[in-house]
């Protein structure tokens, strides 16, 4: 609705007001006349009409009232781009590379997913007024710099799709393990990220990285119910009840992974999805195809040389060559310093030390990880590991 209305106003604030106004009108009209057959369409039509009136009014003022001639403000024509979809246009607007990445995610959450500013602020661990100011600044830049409400042209699309995919991945990750709070998962965020990935997939069926991202999110989603036990405690991959994984979702992800890896040179989401899918296919943790996963991490590290990928590769290396080899890798990452403050580094190190029976060092690493986590479920998990180490 917002996406369709923005196309009329070309102004996010005006469009949001028109949408709110439509809801108010609906409350009154539907109470009297009953709910229309297609409530969504009704609301969109009303919001667009209100917005169009606003635009006409502004045009009249601009052309000076004395003329008293209503200018012909036509509805903007349906754009002739390759993907005529209002929501997707709004996603691409929110994810324009001219906006800071944090603003891209915040705007996508606010305008495309309808998440309240207070909740976005919570996810980013900033006070609500700070987040409100960031969103306002981003909206101002969209208006002042004239960031278009458009799906980019074919030649710009690959670069811009990758920004959108990164934002959707971050959106999902923000929901997958909440940075703070009492629950591990924020379902509304993961659900919306998955919806948007599905939408992108429908609209860009030939894009292998879109297929890769959707596959990745599906595998995560398939395992979602088993990540905590009945008491809400975090379960590691090796402790999870694999019989409760959503096999239909895993099968769908498998098909997408094949497309992602065979449709052209593999991208980072395709390779990540392949790794996740291999985990999901294994009947048990020990039976996982670790050598293949390690080989995929080598590919991933070339495509996306991130220290986080290097850390995950080290965990796979431990399964192939043993904890000692992995500890040497982790020592190199510690020297690099780019993962200082990343709680999964001391947590992984602690686990490897524990497996080698070096429990005093393991305890120290668990304490370091504990100091870096703000999520109650994660903290409880680490505290339990610490007492067992």
């Amino acid at each position, binding site marked *: 609705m917002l996406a369709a209305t923005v196309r009329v106003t070309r102004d996010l604030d005006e469009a949001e007001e028109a949408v709110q106004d439509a809801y108010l009108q609906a409350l009154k009209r539907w109470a009297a006349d009953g709910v229309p057959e297609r409530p969504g369409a009704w609301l969109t039509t009303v919001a667009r009409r209100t917005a169009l009136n606003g635009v006409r009014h502004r045009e009249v003022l601009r052309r000076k009232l004395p003329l008293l001639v209503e200018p012909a403000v036509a509805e903007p024509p349906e754009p002739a781009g390759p993907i005529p979809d209002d929501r997707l246009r709004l996603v691409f607007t929110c994810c*324009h590379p*001219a906006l800071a990445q944090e603003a891209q995610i915040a705007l996508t959450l606010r305008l495309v997913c309808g998440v309240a500013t207070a909740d976005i602020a919570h996810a980013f661990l900033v006070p609500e007024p700070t987040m409100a100011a960031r969103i306002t600044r981003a909206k101002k830049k969209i208006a*002042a*710099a*004239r*960031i*278009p409400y*458009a799906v*980019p*042209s074919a030649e*710009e699309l690959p670069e811009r799709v990758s920004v959108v995919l990164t934002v959707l991945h971050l959106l999902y990750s923000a929901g997958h393990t909440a940075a703070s709070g009492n629950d591990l998962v924020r379902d509304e965020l993961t659900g919306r990220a998955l919806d948007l990935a599905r939408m992108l997939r429908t609209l860009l069926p030939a894009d292998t990285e879109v297929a890769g991202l959707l596959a990745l999110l599906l595998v995560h989603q398939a395992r979602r119910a088993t990540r905590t036990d009945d008491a809400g405690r975090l379960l590691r991959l090796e402790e999870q009840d694999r019989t409760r994984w959503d096999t239909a979702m895993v099968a769908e992800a498998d098909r997408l992974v094949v497309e992602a890896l065979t449709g052209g040179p593999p991208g980072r989401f395709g390779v990540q999805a392949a790794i996740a899918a291999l985990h999901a296919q294994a009947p048990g943790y020990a039976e996982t195809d670790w050598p293949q996963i390690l080989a995929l991490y080598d590919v991933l590290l070339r495509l996306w040389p991130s220290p986080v990928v290097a850390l995950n590769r080290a965990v796979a290396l431990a399964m192939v060559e043993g904890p000692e080899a992995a500890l040497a890798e982790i020592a190199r990452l510690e020297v690099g310093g780019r993962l200082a403050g990343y709680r999964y580094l001391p947590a992984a190190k602690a686990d490897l030390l524990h497996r080698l029976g070096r429990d005093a060092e393991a305890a120290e690493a668990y304490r370091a990880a504990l100091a870096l986590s703000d999520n109650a479920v994660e903290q409880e998990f680490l505290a339990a590991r610490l007492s067992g180490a």
Partner: protein
Amino acid sequence: MAQYAVLIYERVAPEDLPKEIMDRHLGLPDRIGELGGKVTAGLALQPNETATAIRGDLVTDGPFVETKEVLAGVYVLEARDLDHALACAKLTPVVEGGVEVRPLVGFQVVPD
């Protein structure tokens, strides 16, 4: 059409620009025209050392802001939207540095 200033930041002084880059500067309005944009004004600035800054009543030598890249020139571009402006601005030849695209406030400060 919306107006944008394209600010050219360059580490190489204008007199030291290679001939090939100079030629591309001279041809820039035409190339932007081919993309559907329009250059309406352009200024090339003398090097930083020639700048004098005035802040209140205080007059000092040098530019207002010291950076490694020097503001070397400005042109005003008419484009449909930011994506169009960026596509045009990408044609700007730069030896070492880059360009900044800034939307202009929509009032005329230059007489017609």
